[in-house]
């Protein structure tokens, strides 16, 4: 804690997006080697973007339910960025406080997007995205 402001270990949006985007480039530095692009990288980066947006929605969370849901999203981010080069720093900019209905809508949209992404991803990433989709789908129960 710094004063009354909680300090979280959430990486910034820029750090994460740059970190995940550099992974394939860093792996292919030889002059003549073809640059291999892993399709998972774009899928993972989009999922990271979704989680950062959700975390920002809960920046001012006060109720135990909202705090628990925010913790889930931080765990999602950690699952997606395990092994990425970004280092923890500042939290994403907080979004204006939303109504429960708006939070539920955001959760459902993320659940749909993660589920769709799971169909395109490699087996390992698909499992992670499916779990994220399931977790987001369950959040409206907690928020109700």
């Amino acid at each position, binding site marked *: 804690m710094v004063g009354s402001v909680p300090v979280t270990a959430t990486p910034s949006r820029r750090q994460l997006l740059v970190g995940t985007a550099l992974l394939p480039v860093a792996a292919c530095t030889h002059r003549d080697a073809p640059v291999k692009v892993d399709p998972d990288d774009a899928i993972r980066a989009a999922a990271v973007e979704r989680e950062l947006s959700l975390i920002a929605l809960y920046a001012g969370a006060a109720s*135990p*339910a909202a705090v*628990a*849901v925010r*913790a*889930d999203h931080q*765990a*999602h981010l950690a*699952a997606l960025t395990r092994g990425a080069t970004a280092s923890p720093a500042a939290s994403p900019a907080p979004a204006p406080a939303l109504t429960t209905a708006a939070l539920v809508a955001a959760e459902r949209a993320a*659940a749909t997007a993660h*589920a769709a992404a*799971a*169909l395109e991803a490699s*087996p*390992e990433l*698909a*499992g*992670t995205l*499916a*779990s*994220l*989709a*399931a*977790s987001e*789908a*369950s*959040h409206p*129960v*907690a928020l109700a």
Partner: protein
Amino acid sequence: MSEQDLLRAVVEAEQAAVYGYGVLGARLDPVTRRLAVTSYDVHRARRDRIVAALEDRGGTAPRPLAAYDVVVPDRAAALALAVHLEEGMALRWRALVSGTGDRELRQVAVSALQESAVRAAQWRRLAKITPVTVPLPGT
């Protein structure tokens, strides 16, 4: 595990879920029992669909056990069993998501994993278990 093994594991878990919901519903009040009845119907339908998928692939579905080792003396035990059943289902569905190369089957598994996570959250809420949700259902 092969895709057929993963499908068999789903069928076995669905058979257990059908049995379990049949038992636990008797310990619930009429309003809560409706959720158990709905869950029972969903699991029967999922079981039948995955049995068909398994047979389409040349596999044979496992036979359900005559009885399962469940003791449900009261409402608290019924709610705990419901959570346990859904968490078990989530494990099998997530394994199938990662273990199948069939896009349609993966879609079924993702949807089923989502539904299990929602039902598990509903049961935890009724049982006053916190947090109501888990970050990575199926792990």
